[in-house]
């Protein structure tokens, strides 16, 4: 039984389950699926500032912080308690590509050579984690949503603005992947 639970889930299980978050939150709580506004709440709660962007009653909006806390626990369940012991079943082309970049351990979710503490002694940690995180936090607030709020919730509402945001996500992601990464690896 435990062996079965440790198996990774295919896209046709994962995708529909993620989609169900939309009606669950709408019907049980009248909330729109999203998570990136949690960064704004953390600012409002933790940073002493006079900026009007953070002058609101974040405690009234704190439901998203509970959602975020739950995701941390869910990450522990899926990525630790029920961790897949086998290498990820990536496509052959991807495995070849990653080998050329110097990665071959696919039992890891993310390459620890980039996302470990030790990568802060070089430039990798500062680029991939610090600059990457900054772009996520800055970009998502500017775009007024992330993959949850725009790609899933916004597209579910057939909002043309959300489609524009998703196109932006791919412009940025493709640029980094195809223009920047070939210079680094």
């Amino acid at each position: 039984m435990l062996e079965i639970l440790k198996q990774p889930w295919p896209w046709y299980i994962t995708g529909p389950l993620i989609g169900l978050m939309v009606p669950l939150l709408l019907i049980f709580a009248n909330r729109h699926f999203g998570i990136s506004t949690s960064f704004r709440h953390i600012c409002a709660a933790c940073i002493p500032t006079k900026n009007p962007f953070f002058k609101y009653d974040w405690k009234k909006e704190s439901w998203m912080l509970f959602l975020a806390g739950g995701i941390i626990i869910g990450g522990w369940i899926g990525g630790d308690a029920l961790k897949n012991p086998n290498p990820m079943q990536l496509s052959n082309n991807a495995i070849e590509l990653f080998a050329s970049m110097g990665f071959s351990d696919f039992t890891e979710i993310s390459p620890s050579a980039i996302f470990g503490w030790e990568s802060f002694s070089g430039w990798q940690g500062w680029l991939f984690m610090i600059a990457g995180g900054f772009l996520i936090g800055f970009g998502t607030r500017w775009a007024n949503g992330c993959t949850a709020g725009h790609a899933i919730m916004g597209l579910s509402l057939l909002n043309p603005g959300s489609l524009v945001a998703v196109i932006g996500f791919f412009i940025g992601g493709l640029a980094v992947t195809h223009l920047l990464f070939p210079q680094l690896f």
Partner: protein
Amino acid sequence: MKKNLFFLVIGVVFGTILTKGEVISWFRIQEMFHFQSFHMYGVIGCAVVVGALSVQLIQRFNIKTIHGERINLEKKPAQYKAHILGGTLFGMGWALTGACPAPIYALTGAGYYPMITVLFSAVMGTFTYALVKDKLPH
């Protein structure tokens, strides 16, 4: 409190799905941006189809919340310049970290503790946006 517990439970379920579905993997995101696998497109595509069908059903049958309230289906305001420009910066961060906001939390829970620095930096990014937002096109 009961309401907050609901969101916590939904978060636990969502975080488990993201992790077991390998959506939080830098390798999967790179594979997606190289168009080398259907996995991530299948995940996002199925999620949108289920989400959109749910919204259509709610509209057609005028489904109410469990408390009998009218369900709010209002779209986010159209800010096309902000969507495309902010979205592009976000996408760069997505490719670099291999994580969007929910996976940052999930990876931390999965034991990838350096992701806390990504979370910290993302919060700083949001704070910086607030400082300069009046100078940015929206």
